[in-house]
C-alpha cells in the first residue's frame, strides 16, 4: 500500500516537474511547481513527518507559490508566452543538465544506503519544540536564535529598501 502511494507520488512529481520546465505559459509553470511541492508534502506524510509536511504546505505551497503568483499577476499578461530559446542554447542546456543528472545519479548509486531505525527520534511537535529550545546535547537553540536574528535583519532591510528616502523625510 505504502509502496503504491510512493510510486504514485513520484510519478506526479516527475511528470509535473518536467511540465513545469517545458510549459511556455509562466503561470502554468508555477501551478505545476505547486503540484510538485504538494507531492513532496505527501512524501513527508507518508514517512510520518507530519510537522515537516505541514511546514512544507504553509511555507512553500501557501507562501512562496502565492508570492510567485502575485509577481506573475503584476507583471505578466495572460496572452504573453515565453520565447523559445535558440537551438544552440538548447543543446548547451541539455548537455549541462545531462552532466548534472549523471553526476547526481552516480553519487546516489555509489552511496551505500543503510536502513535507519525510525524509533530513535520522535516526530511529535512537542519534542520538536523542546529540541529547538534545548541547549543540552542535540539541542538547536543556537541555530534557532541565529536564524531569528537573520530574519529580523531581513525584515528591517526590506522596510528600509521599501521606504527609501521617505524614512528620513518628516511629513
Amino acid at each position, binding site marked *: 500500500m505504502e509502496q503504491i502511494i510512493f510510486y504514485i507520488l513520484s510519478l506526479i512529481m516527475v511528470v509535473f516537474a518536467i511540465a513545469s520546465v517545458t510549459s511556455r505559459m509562466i503561470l502554468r509553470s508555477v501551478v505545476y511547481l505547486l503540484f510538485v511541492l504538494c507531492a513532496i508534502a505527501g512524501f513527508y506524510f507518508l514517512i510520518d513527518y507530519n510537522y515537516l509536511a505541514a511546514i512544507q504546505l504553509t511555507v512553500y505551497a501557501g507562501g512562496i507559490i502565492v508570492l510567485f503568483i502575485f509577481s506573475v499577476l503584476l507583471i505578466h499578461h*495572460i496572452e504573453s508566452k515565453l520565447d523559445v530559446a535558440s537551438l544552440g542554447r538548447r543543446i548547451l542546456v541539455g548537455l549541462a543538465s545531462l552532466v548534472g543528472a549523471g553526476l547526481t545519479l552516480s553519487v546516489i548509486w555509489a552511496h551505500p544506503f543503510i536502513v535507519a531505525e525510525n524509533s530513535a527520534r520522535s516526530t511529535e511537535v512537542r519534542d520538536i519544540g523542546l529540541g529547538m529550545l534545548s541547549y543540552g546535547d542535540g539541542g538547536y537553540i543556537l541555530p534557532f536564535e541565529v536564524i531569528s536574528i537573520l530574519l529580523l535583519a531581513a525584515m528591517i532591510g526590506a522596510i528600509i529598501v521599501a521606504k527609501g528616502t521617505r524614512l528620513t523625510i518628516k511629513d
Partner: protein
Amino acid sequence: MNLPLSITKNIHDWLFELMSAPIAAVVEMVLIAVAFLGFFALAGLLLVYMERRIAAFFQLRLGPNRVGPQGLFQTIADALKLVSKELVVIDKADKFLYNLAPYFVIVASLMALSVLPFSQEFHAFDINIGVFFLLAVSSIGVIGILLGGWASNNKYALIGAMRSGLQTISYELSVGLSILTIVLLAGSLQISEIIAVQQKGGWFIIQGHIPAFIAFMIFMIAGTAETNRAPFDLVEAESELGAGFHTEYSGMKFAYFFLAEFINMFIIAAIGTILFFGGWLSPFGITESIPLLGVMWFMLKVLGLVFLMMWFRWTFPRLRVDQLLTLEWKYLLPINLFNIVFMAVIVWLGLTINF
C-alpha cells in the same frame, strides 16, 4: 450509564470481517471520503438557506418560504438550477487554469473539514499537528482564488483576486497567532487533546478568561476576513467589481466557489468552537454519558458562531482597502502579540480559572 453506541467502530469491525485488510482499508477511505463530500454539499446548501433567512430576518422580510416546509428546499432547487445552466466558455481565458481554480478552493476546504471532530468518535483524521494542519491547508485555498481571477482574463476578476490575496495573507497571521494563544493554554496541537484538556478544566474561554476572550474576538474578526465575507468582502464588492474574482464563472463552477465560501465559514466557526467552546463537550457535562449527543452540541455551537458571522455581515458596512490593512497591521497584530505574552504569563503564574 455508558451506552454502548459506537457506530464507527462497529462499521470498522464489520468491514474488516467482510474483506481482507488492504481492501477493507481502501473501502473505508472511500466511504469516509463520500461521507465528507455529502456533508460538504448538504452543509453548504443548508448554510446558504440559513444565510438567506437570517438576512431576511435582519431586513424585516420573510426570505425563502415557498419551496418545501419553511422554504427548506429552496437552495436545493437553486443548486439544481445551477447544474442545468450553461457553462460559458471564455475565448481568451487560460482554459486549463480557469477550470482548475474552483477545485483548489474545494480541495482546501475539504482537507480542512477532514480534521474536524464532530464528536468523540466521529473524528476522521486525528493528526498530531491538528490545528497547524488546518492553518496549512487553509493557506492553499487562496491560490484557487488568485488563479481564477487571473485566468478569467477580466479586469474586475483580476482586481478582485489581487485584493483577495492581499487580505487572506494579512489576516492569516492574526488567525494563526490567536490560535497560538490558545495552544499555549492547551499545551498541544492535537485536536482530541485540546478537547480533553477542556473536559478536565472547563472551556478555554472561561479557563483563559481575559486573554482568551481577546483572542476569541481577534479570531472572529480575522476569520471573517479570511473567508472574504462582509464587512471584509472587498474581493467581490458588487458595487465596485461586478462579482470580483468569479465574475466570469457560470453554472456549477460558480457554485463551487459559492459553496466553498460557506463551508469555509463553517470551518472557521468550527475551529472557534474547538478552541474556545470545548468542541463536542456538553455544557457542565450534562450529557457526558451519551457520547452520540456530542454531534448535536458541536453543531449547535458551530451554528451559533455562524450566526454571529452572519450578524456581522448584515450589521457592518464594507471597509476600504486601506482601512482593512490598517486594522490588521496596526491594531490586530500588535494586540495579538501582546496577548500571547499576556497568556504566557497567566499560564506561567497559574492564574487560569479551573473547576
